[in-house]
């Protein structure tokens, strides 16, 4: 500090440098904040469709066919439904039939269109402490895990996968919530975070096959239970009701739904593979 305060209004070269810096930041910022005006719709979807790479594969094809951009907000099914209920999305692609039907019945969605399915699996550590590898009855596998009290990591986040898992516990006549914090651990996180936790703890986890196939940090985890018909995981697509939310881009969004259900869209879904494996089976049209 030299010479004490300047009491005249300072206007040195430094001030000018700062002013120039501020102005350039503002312009830089404004340029970035002004979003391109290409037509787009907002799709609220689940982490399973996004993390597996399916949407990266099929959305460019839709864009090519229609010129419409699809902006994906990937969250759990529960949160996706809440976003749509608030009118913050134009289309939903989710996987919890019960809450989807309620969403439509309550007037928030126009119609539920079955789109595709994959299946859930149970993964577990290689040494398989519960001894459930190859058990074809998922109820039996879960009750064994519960009775043996081996670590099991659950999403615990109100997602479609979490709800499916809870239904199967109920079917197996076990209530893991009583054991929450002991052998049953709820992460309250997405599928990937939950798998990271299970891998690190050597625990069992309930996961959709798409996320599992694309997941890279498996460590010791392997598929142990697979193939029970109750493990089917159906996805549907729903237009958010424009009568509830006038700003919903119903025309473009309906165009997206029509494309997904068309032979071109269904083929794009069926053609998607990870390491040569089919991840999603199209449901909307019978195979030609």
């Amino acid at each position, binding site marked *: 500090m030299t010479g004490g305060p300047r009491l005249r209004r300072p206007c040195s070269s430094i001030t000018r440098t700062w002013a120039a810096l501020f102005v350039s930041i503002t312009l830089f910022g404004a340029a970035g904040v002004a979003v391109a005006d290409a037509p787009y719709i907002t799709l609220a979807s689940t982490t399973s469709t996004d993390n597996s790479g399916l949407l990266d594969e099929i959305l460019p094809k839709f864009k090519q066919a229609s010129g419409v951009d699809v902006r994906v907000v990937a969250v759990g099914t529960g949160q996706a439904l809440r976003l749509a209920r608030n009118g913050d999305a134009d289309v939903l692609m989710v996987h919890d039939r019960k809450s989807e039907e309620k969403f439509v019945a309550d007037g928030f969605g126009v119609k539920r269109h079955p789109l595709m399915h994959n299946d859930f699996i149970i993964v577990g550590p290689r040494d398989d402490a519960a001894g459930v590898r190859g058990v074809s009855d998922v109820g039996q596998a879960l009750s064994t895990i519960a009775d043996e009290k081996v670590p099991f990591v659950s999403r615990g986040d109100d997602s479609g996968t979490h709800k499916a898992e809870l239904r199967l516990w109920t079917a197996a006549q076990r209530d893991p919530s009583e054991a929450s914090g002991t052998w049953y651990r709820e992460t309250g996180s997405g599928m990937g975070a939950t798998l990271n936790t299970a891998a690190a703890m050597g625990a069992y986890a309930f996961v959709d096959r798409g996320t599992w196939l694309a997941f*890279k940090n498996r460590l010791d985890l392997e598929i142990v239970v697979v193939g029970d018909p109750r493990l089917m995981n159906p996805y549907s697509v729903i237009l958010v009701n424009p009568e509830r939310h006038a700003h919903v881009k119903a025309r473009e969004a309906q165009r997206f739904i029509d494309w997904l259900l068309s032979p071109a869209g269904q083929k794009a879904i069926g053609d998607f593979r990870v390491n040569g494996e089919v991840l999603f089976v199209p449901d909307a049209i019978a195979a030609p």
Partner: protein
Amino acid sequence: MESLLQAFVTAFRLLTSFDADLVEIVLLSLRVSLMAVFLAALVGLPLGGWLAIARFPGRRIVIATLNAMMGLPPVVVGLIVYLLLSRAGPLGWLGWLFTPTAMVVAQFLLIMPLVAALSRQALEDLFEEYDALFRSLRVGTLGVVQTLLYEGRHRLLTTLLAGYGRAIAEVGAVIIVGGNIAHVTRVMTTAIALETSKGDLPLALGLGIVLLFISLLLNALAALGQTRASETVTP
């Protein structure tokens, strides 16, 4: 250990390849956070300056509140901004949700209290030094605040860098109000969260190292500017 090594290799590859997606993500991160810092400076610095010299009943409570708000959890700020900007919320008609603008708003709310609180502290110390001089010259409030902001500019730069650091590093708020939409609202931190959830830990960590590198670059630039500036001031 292997993952850590892999992460550094990935980071190096990312930094040298100038991958188009990465450049886009980095630029958006900088745009959003620098814009938030700029707005926070515009409001926070004068507010801090005024709080440094003003004397009114309840001033301590205001300052304590401001200090406490430095610890606002980003997720909470994200939720509040979401509820405001949601179509069902009071500002829904703006259509800002899931845009970079919403992210700027969230980060602004997150760091403005920090900028105001830290600058208040820095300028109050300065004010005590010069108080007698100001009195003898009968300088008005506006003049005092202006002089303090000018004389304290070096300390305030550190304050702004702290604000920038909090903004660029947070993920909780921007992932809620931005939605982590590819090519629209995906920034460094949300990309790191995404890669973590895909189990690609080396890529996630690699991105983290890139983020650190960019912050280092920015801080070095600021330090350089500061040295230059003090050289010009002291003839």
